[in-house]
Every structure is written in structure tokens, then in C-alpha cells.
């Protein structure tokens, strides 16, 4: 127990040093595994960990028994399928229900927010979510006031409370039993992604940029304080560990540069600066390519983000952002899936030699590690990080 606490302290010290652009004893290794990868390693079926929260928590433990990890996100899957069944979620398909037992969940994207909803959303988004959005996206809530809707609301809220509590207990148990620290605490999004992911969807938002650009801008401004608040609330006030911000529609080339500058960037910057004003650092999880936007990103306050590199030009990211923000990532997911252990080790060595020499670097895959990654390649990545990442 005391050994695990000491180990966790060492790992936290290493992680914090890298985020603060210092040189720790060696490069920290943070791997952002999907629930599906964890499930595969654990031996459970996808259906089991989607539906049985205890197995979902246990899957991460089984992975920790097999892999020498320093940090984890938490229990395997973010989403508990039963909670979604309780409310009749139209937008998610799960293994064992509408998909076979070993198929990853699917998100059914539709413009669930309609163009005519903008005014109500802008006036009071919380009320709009409760009275319009939830009944629209959940079959059990379709008739507010009905018995089915009342029961679904109760079960949904109770289920989420259960999930929050179990998730917190799981993270504490991983730290206590394995000395692993949380890689992230809290989550939020770019306002444009909040609007474009689950509300308008990609097809809806792309039309809106041309047909109602002023409404889009108003909605984005309304979202800024909510996204800052949501981030701090889900972090429960923590300011040691970074907040996870998966960035979706801002990747190149979803938008032209002038659209990105007008619609995506200003409110994302406000959210990151707002979080930083509370001392909360953002893991800028730049999925896909962000090379054209690096100079704008450099405007953020020093150390306020960890810039995560997926397919962004690593040389350019190092040149523009290195020394200002901690960098992470860049081990290609395709290499983890289709390469050999030797190729992974070679890649990690080159990566660390070139970009980690001055500190301020965290080793990670480019994107969330899916179940196509080979376990032997993950081991190779960890071994190479330990061997070549020493300062």
C-alpha cells in the first residue's frame, strides 16, 4: 500500500514536470486506450463491459495486471449501455443489442437540433436540452409527463449518479492497488464541437456556416461559460491533472482557414483561457491534422495546454509550439495495429531522440488506441519509453 502510494507520487511528479516543460527523471508514458482495447486485453466480450459496470471496472484491472502502465483514464468504457437503454437512446448502437457481441459501439449522427431550435437554445440552452433535446433523442422520454418518461428520467439520473460514483471508486482503487495515476481529470469540449457533434451534426453545421452564420456565432458564445463550467465541475475542482478536450471538427480540412478563424478558434480559445484562469490545464487532443493552425494555437498562454499530436506535422509542431507547451503523442496508431514490435521501438527511439531531449514531452499514441492495436506493440512502446526516455 505504502509502496503503491510512493509509486503514484513518483509518477505524478514525472507527469507534472513534463507538463510544466521541465525534465523529469524520464519521459512519462500516457496511453489513451479505448474501452474496446481494454476489453480485448481483459478477455471480456464488448457486450459484457458495455453492459456490466463491474466488469467494465474489472477490465481495466485485468489490463493493469498485464501491462506496466503509469496512468489510466479510468474504467474501460465511458458509456454504460444500460443507462442508454433506460432512456431509449436513439443515437447509440451497442454490442449484444443491435450489434454482434464483439462490435464496437456506433454513434448514429443526425441533426438532432433543428435550425429552428437556435433561438430557444441561445435563450436558455439548459432548458432547451431538458424540454426539447432529451425527448427528441430518447424514445422513453418522447412524451414528457407520461409514466414511461417519468420512469426513464428517474432511472437515467439515478444511473448516471451510480456511474459517477463507481467511476470515482474505480480510479481510487487503481491508484491504491497499482500506483497508477489518472491521466485526465475532467472533460469539456470546444464550443463548436459541442454544437457540431451531438446537436447539429456535421451535415447540419456545415449548412449553418453558410445559411445562418450569425446564429452559429451566437450559440457558440452562449456555450463558452457552460463549457468552462462543465470542465471545472467534471474535474471537481482538480487543477493538478489535465482536462481532456477531444477536438473533432476543428481538424484540417473540415473548414477553410477563414471559417476556422471565425467559427472554431475564438470560442475554443476563450474556453481554454477560462479554464486556465482557474489553474486548469487542457489536454488539447488534436485528433487528425492541425498543422495549418499551429501559429494561432501558439497564442494561448504558456503551459495552458498539452498539445497532443496525432497526424499534425511533428517537426512543425515542435518548431512552433515546443518550449511553450508540453507536446505528446505521435506514435502512429497504424503502426501499433499493423507494424512489428521492432518497428514500434525504432519509431519511439527516433521520436524521443528528436523531440523529447529538452523535456516537456509525454509519450503516447497519436489517437485513442483501438482494439486493432497489438498488445505486443503496446509492450514494445512502453519498453522503448522506459529504455530511451531517461534524461
Amino acid at each position, binding site marked *: 500500500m505504502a509502496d503503491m502510494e510512493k509509486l503514484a507520487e513518483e509518477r505524478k511528479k514525472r507527469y507534472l514536470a513534463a507538463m510544466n516543460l521541465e525534465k523529469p527523471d524520464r519521459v512519462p508514458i500516457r496511453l489513451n486506450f479505448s474501452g474496446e482495447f481494454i476489453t480485448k486485453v481483459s478477455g471480456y466480450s464488448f457486450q459484457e463491459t458495455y453492459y456490466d459496470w463491474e466488469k467494465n471496472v474489472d477490465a481495466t484491472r485485468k489490463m493493469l495486471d498485464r501491462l506496466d502502465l503509469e496512468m489510466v483514464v479510468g474504467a474501460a468504457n*465511458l*458509456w454504460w449501455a444500460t443507462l442508454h437503454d433506460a432512456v431509449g437512446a436513439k443515437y447509440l448502437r451497442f454490442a449484444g443489442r443491435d450489434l454482434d457481441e464483439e462490435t464496437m459501439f456506433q454513434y448514429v449522427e443526425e441533426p438532432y437540433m433543428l435550425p*429552428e*431550435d437556435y*433561438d*430557444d437554445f441561445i*435563450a*436558455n440552452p*439548459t*432548458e432547451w*436540452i*431538458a424540454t426539447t*433535446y*432529451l425527448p427528441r*433523442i430518447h424514445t422513453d422520454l418522447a412524451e414528457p409527463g407520461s409514466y414511461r418518461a417519468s420512469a426513464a428520467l428517474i432511472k*437515467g*439520473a439515478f444511473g*448516471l*449518479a451510480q456511474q459517477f460514483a463507481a467511476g470515482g471508486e474505480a480510479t481510487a482503487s487503481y491508484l491504491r492497488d497499482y500506483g497508477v495515476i489518472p491521466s485526465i481529470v475532467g*472533460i*469539456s*469540449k470546444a464550443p463548436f464541437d*459541442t454544437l457540431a*457533434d*451531438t*446537436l447539429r451534426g456535421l451535415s447540419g453545421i456545415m449548412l449553418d456556416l453558410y445559411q445562418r452564420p450569425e446564429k452559429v456565432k451566437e450559440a457558440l458564445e452562449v456555450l463558452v*461559460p*457552460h*463549457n*468552462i*463550467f*462543465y470542465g471545472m*465541475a*467534471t474535474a471537481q475542482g482538480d487543477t493538478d491533472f489535465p482536462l481532456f478536450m477531444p477536438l473533432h471538427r476543428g481538424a484540417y480540412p473540415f473548414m477553410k482557414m477563414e471559417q476556422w478563424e471565425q467559427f472554431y478558434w475564438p470560442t475554443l480559445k476563450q474556453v481554454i483561457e477560462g479554464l486556465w484562469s482557474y489553474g486548469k490545464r487542457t489536454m488539447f487532443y488534436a485528433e487528425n491534422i492541425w498543422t495549418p493552425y499551429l501559429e494561432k494555437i501558439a497564442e494561448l498562454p504558456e503551459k495552458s495546454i498539452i498539445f497532443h499530436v496525432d497526424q499534425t506535422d511533428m517537426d512543425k509542431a515542435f518548431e512552433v509550439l515546443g518550449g511553450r507547451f508540453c507536446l505528446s503523442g505521435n506514435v502512429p496508431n497504424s503502426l501499433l495495429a499493423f507494424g512489428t514490435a521492432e518497428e514500434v521501438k525504432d519509431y519511439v527511439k527516433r521520436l524521443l531522440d528528436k523531440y523529447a531531449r529538452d523535456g516537456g514531452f509525454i509519450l503516447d499514441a497519436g489517437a485513442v488506441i483501438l482494439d486493432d492495436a497489438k498488445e505486443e506493440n503496446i509492450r514494445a512502446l512502453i519498453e522503448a519509453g522506459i529504455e530511451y526516455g531517461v534524461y
Partner: protein
Amino acid sequence: MSRELTFKNMPPGVCVPWEAKEKELGEIKGDAGLIREQWEKLDLFGYLYLWNWVQR
């Protein structure tokens, strides 16, 4: 605007503002601060529940 809103200009973290509930309660005989504090804590959970379906 397609319909009447119950509340306007709501800050983040709030579903039903304490001020509205306080009016409905009328005279509070004991510690109003305690009632407010606990109201706001649970109201915050309601807020997070609602936004959980959007921030994913």
C-alpha cells in the same frame, strides 16, 4: 422564439435558480443559507445530468 421559456439568462450550473424556489417557499423559519446551499448542490447535479447528454 418558438415557446415561452421558464427562465432566461440562466448561468451555468443552474437548472432552477434558488431565487425562484425561495419565492415559492415563502417565509423560511430556520437557516435559509443551509437550505439554499443544499438546493444548489442538488440543482448542480441536475445541470450536469442534462449537459452530460450534450458534452460527449
